[in-house]
């Protein structure tokens, strides 16, 4: 009986270890791809709100400008073609949010 339990425990632990190693390998395998697309997800989230810019509260607009500034150095590290396009697109997006902030402040 006791010996049977030990076997069962060993099997459970073994399966758990195998699952953990497999999962870690899977995460590592998709890691670089996930990291490269991470900037794009952030870019799309930030710039998806340009159509609504006039209706957004000031805090949110300032938050979006701040997120643009944080994302900029990551985009500058991309390959030349991506950098050219997305640096410009991010700048256009940031400038619009900043424009709305300044327009409200000036009245």
């Amino acid at each position, binding site marked *: 009986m006791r010996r049977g339990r030990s076997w069962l425990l060993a099997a459970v632990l073994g399966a758990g270890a195998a699952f953990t190693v497999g999962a870690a390998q899977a995460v590592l395998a998709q890691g670089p791809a996930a990291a490269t697309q991470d900037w794009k997800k952030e870019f799309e989230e930030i710039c998806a709100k340009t159509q609504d810019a006039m209706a957004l509260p000031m805090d949110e607009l300032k938050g979006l400008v701040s997120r643009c500034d944080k994302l900029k150095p990551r985009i500058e590290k991309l390959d030349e073609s991506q950098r050219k396009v997305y640096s410009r697109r991010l700048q256009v997006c940031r400038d*619009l949010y900043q424009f709305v902030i300044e327009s409200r402040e000036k009245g």
Partner: protein
Amino acid sequence: MAVPLRIAVLVVLLAPVASRGMEVVPAHRYGLVQFGNRAAAAKVPPVSFDHWSHRARFTCRLCHVDVGFAMTAGQTGISASTNRSGYHCGACHNGKTVLGGKPVFASCSAGVDVDESPSCRRCHEKRDPEKARRDYEALAEKFPRKGQARAVDWEEAEAKGLVRPIDFVEGVSIRRAPLKMDKEISIESSGWMTDVLFSHRKHSVWNGCEVCHPEIYPSTKSGTKKTSMIGISSGESCGVCHTKVAFPIADCERCHVKPVR
């Protein structure tokens, strides 16, 4: 009646600037730009791009915001490499994007001799003005025309549903709610012309917000912005588009629509 000397001098000095913006350019030549910054180094002819050939199909915003074409010449950094990577022209001209049931031809294919390949010469070729005129007329016959140049009236064509400009390209554009912008602005004319009624709604159909703000129209305190016809003729303010691509300022009555006060 004697004209004061300083006014006469002013008129003489400003006449060339004003007349530049008032020039009536034939419709098939209006909006022509050349992409040639890198062409000589790459030993290829520059690309002659007619805005009208794309205007029937796409919004200005799609190309100038999503695809990333700058509004100022030489600022985009377009190259064969960016096209091949699926950016700039390559965002649509990739051999995969389907438009009107047909794939759009690929731009700047690697390893192709530009002198030999007909596909390169679709863009990299010296422009034939007569062919451009014929192509324009073939396109324009389906649409209403207006103004001194009898150019396509894109605004009416859009309003009548004759054109439905695409504003989204899969893999390039971001899905967003449609823009709701109905604010109209009355701009007082200080000269002899009637006031201008500026429609945000009409402009936002093609441009969204980002094409104009803040690059062309930066933030200002309400009511303090002064726009002059001299500035517009020189390519400032409305003149960024309305001296190059959108209907020309010589069609005065298309903006100065409000009755005299």
